[in-house]
C-alpha cells in the first residue's frame, strides 16, 4: 500500500490529506473535513485537474481584457495548451457574467465562461 500526502484544493480550507493507494486506486483518505476531499484525492491520483482562470481579449469594453474561468476542473497537463488557445480568442462586448465563451473546450467537457459583465462602450 502506498501512502501519499495531498493538500485538498477543493475549497479554501485546504485540508491536509493522507491518501492510501493500492494499485492506483484510493482505498482510504484521512484528514479531510468533507467529501470533497475524498473526490479530490481520487482525481488527483487518477488524473490531476485544476480550475483555470485567465483572460481573453475583448473589444468595445471598458477594459481590454475579459476575465474567464473553467466551469469545472481542467486536466492539469493540458493547461498550457488551453492558455495558448485562449490567447487567440477575442470577444466583443456586451458580455454577461457566466456567458459561455467556449463550449466543451478542447473536448474536455469543460466550458470557458466569463467572470464578469461588460457593457458595450460607445453605443
Amino acid at each position: 500500500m502506498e501512502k501519499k500526502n495531498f493538500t485538498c484544493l477543493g475549497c479554501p480550507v485546504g485540508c491536509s490529506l493522507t491518501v492510501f493507494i493500492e494499485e492506483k486506486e484510493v482505498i482510504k483518505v484521512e484528514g479531510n473535513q468533507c467529501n470533497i476531499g475524498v473526490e479530490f484525492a481520487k482525481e488527483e491520483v487518477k488524473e490531476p485537474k485544476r480550475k483555470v482562470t485567465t483572460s481573453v481579449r475583448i473589444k468595445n469594453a471598458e477594459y481590454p481584457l475579459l476575465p474567464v474561468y473553467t466551469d469545472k476542473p481542467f486536466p492539469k497537463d493540458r493547461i498550457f495548451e488551453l492558455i495558448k488557445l485562449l490567447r487567440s480568442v477575442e470577444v466583443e462586448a456586451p458580455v454577461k457574467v457566466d456567458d459561455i465563451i467556449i463550449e466543451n473546450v478542447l473536448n474536455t467537457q469543460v466550458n470557458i465562461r466569463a467572470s464578469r459583465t461588460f457593457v458595450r462602450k460607445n453605443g
Partner: protein
Amino acid sequence: MQLKDIYDVVVIGSGPGGLASAIQAKKEGAESVLVIERDKEPGGILNQCIHNGFGVEIFKEDMPGPKYAEMFIKEAESLGVEFMLDSMVLEITPQKKVYVTSKWYGFNEIQARAVVFAMGARERTRAQIRTPGFRPSGVYTAGTAQRLVNIEGFMPGNRFVILGSGDIGMIMARRLTLEGAKVERVLEIMPFLTGLTRNYVQCLQDFNIPLQLKHTVKRILGKNRVEAVEIVEVDENFKPVKGSEEIITADTLLLSVGLVPEIELARSVGVAIDPTILGPYVDEEMQTSIPGIFAAGNVVHIFDLVDWVTEAGFIAGKGASRYALKEKTEKVLIPIKSGNNIHHVVPQFIKKDALEKAPIKLMMRVSKPIEEKVWIELRNENNLIFRKLERYVRPGEMVVLTIPQKTYDEVFKSNTLYVSVEKFGG
C-alpha cells in the same frame, strides 16, 4: 442620481466589505445608503482578482473575484443602494460630515447618520522594507502587477523574482507563468509560508516554481531597469547569513510583503487605532471608538478569505443601520487581549451584554505555526470560559473562535478576556 444632503449610512469603499455593509444596512431598515468609491466601477480589488476561490463559505460555490463582486453589486443596486463612483472622500468629521470630491458631482458636503469605513488595505512598498540599491524601473508591488496583467493588459516583465509568500505573491507567480513569463524564485523571509497552503500547491508546486524560506532580497542590481536581484539567507533574527548570497538574473521584482489597513481617513477623524495591526479598534458590531463610525474588511485587519470580509461587512452594516435609525445605547466594553501565540484578535472589545443577542465570532492570527492539535482558549481573570480544538494553527490562516451564548454569565462578570493557544492535553 440626485445626491441627497443627508444619508442614513454612508459607506466608503465598494469592495467586498463596503458592498456587504451597504446591503445589510438597507436590509436592516436604513432608508438611504450611499457608497462612495474612487474607482470608476464598484467591486474594489475583487475586479483584478480573476482567480477562483471566492464564495465557498457563503455561497458554497467557488467563483472568481469579479463574479463574486458582481453578485453583491447587483444585490445592492436592487435594494436601492446609491453609488457615487469616481469620487474621493477627503475628510470626515466626528459629527459624520463627509467631504467628498467627484468627477461627476464636484465638491460635496454630505451628512451621514452613520459611516462605515471599508477602504481596504494598501500593499507595503519597497520604501517600507528598505531594500538597498538604485531605483530602477521593474520593481512593482504584486497587486499593481496584478492590475496591469489582469485588467489593463500589460506585462510588467519577463523574468521575475517575487519577494513574499503571501497569497497575492503566489497567485501572481502562477498568473505570470501562464502569461509566458519565467518566475525564477519566490522568497520568504519567515521560516514558514505566509499564505494558504493550497496556494503553495496549486500556484507554485504545480508550475515548479521554487520557494525559498528564510530568504530575502539583499539588494537590487540595475540602474535604469532591474537587471538582477541579489538574495540572501537570513538567520532567526532576520540577519543575513554571510556567504549565502546568490545573484539571480531578472528584469522584474515583485513585492508581496504584506498589507496594511488603509486608515488615513480613520486616523484623521480620530478613531483609536490598534498599534499591532494598524486598524481601528472595533467592538462586536464593528463599531470604532467614535460612536456611529463603523469599519469592515481589511481596513480593520487583514483577512485571509473574502467570505469573512463579507461577513464582517454584514455585521458593520447592521450596526450602522441600527445606529442611524435610533440606538445610542450606553455601553460597557470588555477588552479582549492576546495571550500565548496570538498575534492579534478582532474585535478587540465586546459590549458586556453582547452575548444577549447572538454568539460572537472572534478572529485571530497566530504568531507561530504549530503543526499539532492545540486548544484555542478564552479566559477571564479567573476561569476558562470556552475552548475549541484546532488540528493545527498557521499564521497564514485565520483562527476563528465563536463564543457561545451559554457563556453569557461568565463573560458578563469579566473585566478582561484573554485568548490564547494552549497545548493539547493541558
